[in-house]
């Protein structure tokens, strides 16, 4: 019993750290680029498909495939930036329109994956299996920590610490925070709001690229609908934590991962999803009510 709980807690923390990174990307885009990018995880799922495609080319080293996935996430994210900027300019900065644009983008990408790649069937990253099997025994030997779990946790902590260092200890980071607080006043102070917005997209792309690689390692599979499900969880976490709240988002993402893993350890997969969705719905409803 204790072994199952401990193993699920380890899985949960690893999965939660990836959720935390995803929520961080979402909050970065919200605070610094004024975009509600609901379909950001769909972009990351596309990157996992790129990894799968490169792994499929015989003789390609695995690190090259992961690098290709990382670059795909950055390029896809930066390539869609003008779309958001153009619409924001057209509708006078209405943030809800970016949510609709993002949903449209998600529809296109998801349908493309459903029809053009692997005939719409879920993909399995066979080349990563050997990485996923490597395990580190814990001192008391009551549980085993997989290399992928350790990597997810370690890289997530490094990314978060690096991000906070950048935001609080560099001049560009201060410009980011100024834009997040008040874009108009930041513009009067000589800060290029568009430049910060573009840089925000780039940073979110980089963090997203790392997250895509971690997701590929952690799950070892992907499906066209995975992006929608992830997007839904990430946006829900962001709202529960308070949209734009970087620290709260990370913590709530971590909690969601742990809750999800623990529930999956004791209930069947479908009912565990129902429990998680019920918790999310209750949290959303109560959070909305309490905020008033």
């Amino acid at each position, binding site marked *: 019993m204790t072994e199952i709980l401990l193993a699920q807690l380890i899985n949960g923390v690893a999965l939660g750290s990836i959720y935390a990174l995803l929520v961080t990307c979402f909050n970065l885009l919200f605070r610094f680029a004024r975009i509600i990018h609901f379909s950001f995880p769909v972009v990351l799922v596309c990157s996992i498909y790129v990894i799968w495609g490169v792994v499929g080319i015989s003789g390609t080293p695995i690190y090259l495939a992961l690098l290709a996935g990382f670059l795909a996430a950055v390029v896809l994210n930066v390539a869609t930036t003008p779309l958001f900027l153009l619409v924001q300019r057209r509708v006078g900065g209405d943030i809800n329109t970016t949510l609709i644009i993002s949903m449209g983008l998600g529809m*296109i990408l998801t349908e493309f994956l459903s029809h053009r790649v692997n005939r719409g069937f879920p993909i399995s990253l066979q080349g990563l299996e050997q990485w996923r099997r490597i395990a580190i025994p814990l001192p008391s030997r009551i549980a085993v920590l997989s290399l992928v779990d350790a990597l997810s946790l370690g890289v997530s902590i490094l990314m978060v610490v690096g991000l906070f260092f950048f935001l609080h200890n560099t001049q560009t980071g201060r410009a980011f925070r100024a834009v997040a607080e008040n874009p108009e006043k930041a513009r009067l102070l000589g800060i290029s709001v568009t430049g910060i917005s573009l840089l925000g997209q780039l940073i979110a792309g980089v963090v997203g690229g790392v997250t895509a690689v971690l997701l590929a390692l952690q799950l070892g599979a992907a499906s066209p609908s995975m992006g929608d499900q992830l997007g*839904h969880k990430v946006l829900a976490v962001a709202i529960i934590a308070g949209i734009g709240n970087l620290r709260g988002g990370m913590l709530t993402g971590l909690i969601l991962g742990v809750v999800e893993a623990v529930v999956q350890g004791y209930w069947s997969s479908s009912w565990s999803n129902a429990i998680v969705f019920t918790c999310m719905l209750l949290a959303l409803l109560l959070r909305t009510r309490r905020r008033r």
Partner: protein
Amino acid sequence: MSLPLYYYLTITTIQVLVSWAIYLPYRMGQLHFTVVANMAVSAYVAAVAASAWGVPLWLLVIVAPLIGGLVGFLCSLFIGDAECFTVVMVGLTLIYLIRTVVESTPLFGGSLGIFNVPGLFGEPAYNRVVILILAICSIVIVGHFLHRFDQSSLGRAASTILADRRLAQSMGIDIKRIGMVLQTLSSAIGGFAGVLHLLVTQGVSPAHFSFQVIGSSMTILFLGGYSTPWGTLLVAPALLGAILVLPEGTESWRMVIYGSLLIITLMVRPEGLLTRHHFVRVLPHIGFTGRRSGRIR
């Protein structure tokens, strides 16, 4: 009437109803996807009640909007005045929750769903005519209601909330109350659309209430124009018809086409093809010169 024409007309009607159900709360800036969840709830309740318990379907046609309205009302107690993205998330979570529960419960047919639900009446041809009349009547009634709503003080209050929330509050508009009314009505329309879908297809499955329904409804709403319900009435038949007329294989790319259209519309003409301004200018030419048309803002 040929079977393809029957399906085209009824499916278009359902699509118009769903788009209108999303239109109603969007008048105050809320994307209320709970509509799709309500469609699923009412369709499943009706399917189980009709096939397992033998409840007559005509009774369920009346009860379905009430069930949808009740679910919508309960949600609106919490999200009546919430921000757009919170309302979106509650809707999506409810859809995922219902799908997960339905897929895991044998009573609801699991991931395959429930099929061979008895029709309204025994004779299939007669059944189809009645369903088509019911669908057209629902469009007329809901359309008339939306027209009256647009002219009413409630409609103007909703427009004020969409334009400037703080201004609306300072004018004394009760945002929560209006949100609750619109969300409940929208959910009731969604509930009716759900049972209509069940009548047309004589079956229900989790795949019927997916993200695709939201995607197509949003494309129709934003392409038609979100400031008036009439754009939806023009765009839905055109869009659904075009997919049927275009070469074979286009159907499978439907959502890519819809997604592209949605993005292009927001980039080129965010207000949509038909705006309220157009509508007011067109009305006198089609004979609406009376007292009521003069009140349209």
